[in-house]
């Protein structure tokens, strides 16, 4: 739909609304606003039932179908599988409660709409009923929440010792990555040392940092735990990997952590989704300024040997930094 057509559609609906409105206004002019006849109540009740309840349930069903066509592919990390399971469990549980309570509400409307000569039943409440509601909801929630309490600590525990460490740094409006190099240790960082040659502010005097690899490419092997050390250089960002169902904020001054075990390589995922251009996209999920919606990066998940080859090809950050310093001094 072009913008012009869209505006025409809106104008059409608008005019329609005003015609309905004018009719409605005229209808009411000769009526007593305090009189609610049986037929009036009946009409209103059934209109609510059909338009809001039946229409709403059909629309909800359509909405669910529409979502199933567009939902994310199967979670590509073990932690994501847990999160998706909890999500689906919640959909099921709340779906049942939604249908029951909403059906009750609208059935009562069509059953008990006001009629002359009928009298409402005087029921000020029963303590037993209230206790049953409390107990029922409490038990239901406890069952619903038990697996979450378990999985929460599975996901949020410190990463296993043998995990591959990667440091993620967010800044307006992109992401940067650092691998610890052969010694497995990140060099110290200080934001006051940041300059164009040293975008992460790695301390050049810390030998642990000399073999660190700084890159804008994010590649990790499949099937191994990956531990992310997440940091930010300016404002709060959030490292959101929708295909893993995971995210963690990047907060300046407060390092955060997240770990996951990828299940499928990018190539495998292309086969699974049938999309030959598939990439693991990473989005920023915390408002960070004008470029928030384009703060995109990708994760390339590869076979372990390919990852080793790639890592070995990278030059350490310190090499380029040192050379540049030498050139600067010569000038």
């Amino acid at each position, binding site marked *: 739909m072009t913008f012009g057509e869209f505006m025409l559609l809106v104008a059409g609906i608008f005019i329609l609304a005003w015609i309905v409105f004018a009719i409605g206004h005229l209808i009411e002019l000769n009526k007593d606003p305090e009189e609610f006849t049986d037929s009036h109540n009946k009409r209103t009740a059934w209109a*609510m039932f059909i338009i809001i309840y039946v229409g709403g349930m059909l629309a909800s069903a359509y909405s669910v179908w529409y979502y199933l066509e567009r939902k994310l592919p199967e979670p590509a990390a073990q932690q994501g599988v847990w999160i*998706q399971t909890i999500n689906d469990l919640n959909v099921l549980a709340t779906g049942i409660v939604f249908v029951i309570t909403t059906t009750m509400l609208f059935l009562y409307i069509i059953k008990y709409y006001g009629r002359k000569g009928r009298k409402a039943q005087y029921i*000020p409440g029963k303590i037993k009923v209230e206790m049953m509601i409390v107990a029922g909801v409490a038990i239901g929630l406890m069952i619903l929440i038990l697996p979450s309490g378990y999985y929460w600590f599975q996901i949020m525990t410190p990463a296993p010792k043998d995990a591959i460490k990667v440091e993620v740094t967010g800044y307006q409006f992109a992401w940067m990555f650092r691998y610890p190099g052969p010694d497995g240790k990140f060099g110290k960082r200080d934001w006051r040392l940041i300059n164009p040659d040293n975008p992460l502010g790695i301390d050049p005097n810390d030998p642990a940092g000399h073999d660190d690899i700084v890159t804008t490419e994010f590649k990790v092997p499949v099937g191994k735990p990956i531990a992310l050390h997440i940091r930010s250089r300016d404002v709060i960002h959030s490292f959101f990997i929708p295909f893993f169902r995971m995210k963690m904020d990047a907060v300046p001054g407060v390092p955060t952590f997240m770990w996951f075990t990828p299940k499928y390589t990018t190539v495998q995922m292309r086969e699974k989704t049938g999309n030959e251009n598939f990439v693991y996209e990473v*989005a920023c999920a915390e408002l960070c300024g004008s470029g928030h919606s384009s703060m995109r990066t990708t994760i390339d998940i590869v076979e372990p040997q390919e990852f080793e080859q790639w890592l070995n090809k990278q030059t350490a950050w310190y090499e380029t930094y040192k050379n540049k310093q030498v050139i600067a001094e010569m000038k």
Partner: protein
Amino acid sequence: MSEVLRQGVNQESAHTEGHHNGNGLSFWEKWHRGESFFSKYVFSMDHKVIAKQFLLTGMFWGVMGGLLSLVFRLQLAYPDTPIPFFEVILGKWGEGGILDPNFYNSLITIHGTVLVFFVLTGGLSGTFANLLVPLQIGARDMASPFLNMLSYWTFFLASVIMFVSIFLPWGPAASGWTAYPPLSALKELPNMGIGMDLWLVSIVLFIISALFGGLNYVTTILNMRTKGMTMARLPLPVWGMFIASVLGLLSFPVLLAAGVLLLADRHLGTSFYLSEIFFNGQALPNYGGSPILYQHLFWFLGHPEVYIIIIPAMGLVSEVLAVNSRKPIFGYTAMVISMASIMFLSFLVWAHHMFVSGMNPFLGSMFMYMTLAIAIPSAVKVFNWLFTIWRGNLRLTPAMVFALGFVATFIIGGLGGIFLGNAVNDILLHDTYFVVGHFHVVMGVSALLAMFAAIYHWFPKMFGRMMNRTLGYIHFLFTIIPALLVFVPMHHMGMAGVPRRYYSFQSFDYLAQWQDINLFITTMAIIGFSGQLIFFYNFFYSIFRGKKPSSNNPWKATTLEWTTEEMAPGHGNWKGQVPTVYRWAYEYSPPYLKDTDYVPQHIPPEQIKKEPVKVSEPVE
């Protein structure tokens, strides 16, 4: 004390009716007697006038906030098409028909702020607490009418400052309504300069206004109830206002502190929230602060804030449902206890907004349990509403229809909360469209439906006329259908990982498929907004031309506000004695009545036994 007031103000209140020899008085004398135009309608100390002032200001901001949302909805529907009229209405922010991304952020910020604070807090509880608290408890006015006036005018000043900030060339605040630092603390960022300062000042003033109001409501409810009006006989709207006011008094000051500290970080070089920031090509000297501290302070108010909005709404809806079901509210005590427990629990759940902020996971799990515990009192309320209409005799007035709509949307919104309160699920859903859909359904749509229900219900009390009924039903359909069609699909978008506050979906392959739903949502938003024009027409037309109700009590309700015909500005509320209360507020359809189906609170028991109360019996 209340005895003295009840007797003492009697004589004084006579002047509101008589204007006895008020013509020869000087301006200031008239002012003091509350008889000049300014002291009557502008700087009024009368709670009924202040209620209308809050309502009109809230309606103004509702329109403003709605229009802002239409602008950014159009942007989301047509991210790649230049829309020429953006340049017409937005000037340099819409140059060539392309919306400036910073201004997009400003739009969502101002939209969120004004709707949460100015419409749903100021407009909803400001209006109905002012209108109903003195009238339903049988008081001549608020405990401190002057503080009450100050509360409105502080709110007005906050409104003016916010309004001015929107039109400044430096741009309005663009940090989201949550204003997380460092984004909101770096004043060199575009749209984060003077606009952000004004935003903070406006919020600080708003908090002061809310505190003035809250102090007054609590004091009035505790001290100025009429004879026989025990706490256990209070109508539920008053309970709602009372609990929400206590909640506000305890939590708003924390946001005040957060705002003042943020101002200090911006201008005084402090480092409460800032640490290790490299920005604009240079390292900032700040060290040792924590942005997480702000989030704790903000959400310590921010979460109770949604209950400050929804608890009065619950109270109002309970009243409308009971009156129009002709049936006592089911489980009055349970309703009060559940509201009080929501209040108590709401202090213990704030960090569920911060599950993925890097907070200690142990804290996260505690907050998850506390958050889901809130579902228990909420479920009690929902079932009590359902059991209230069960076996009732539903008179489907427009107000009743809106109240039933509230219950329906509150169920949807409440169930959405189960997802977000679950820490594990929140790892996926945090800061996605699911959150947007959820809070719009539960504290946007349902609170608005409650507000409309209350307006339709108490309109005869406020303006002495009735609103057009058919237009009320049309308004209802044009509100709830578009609202659900806008916000329910957003839940699905969130589950599919669509992040919120995105200027466009074009940078990501996995978001491209949601473009058509964006167009649909925008269409529905425009329809929903245009539906509100019907309401505005009905509202203003009915103030002047609406039909007059046949009696003081058009809905045949039991509460005290319907016992007086006094509506002119001025303290007093009742011409003679303030009625004495003999029973609770929900004596509908008791089995011992024959001709009629309700017993107002002020009818002495001996009168009922002799003969049942007549419907339109004049009071006293």
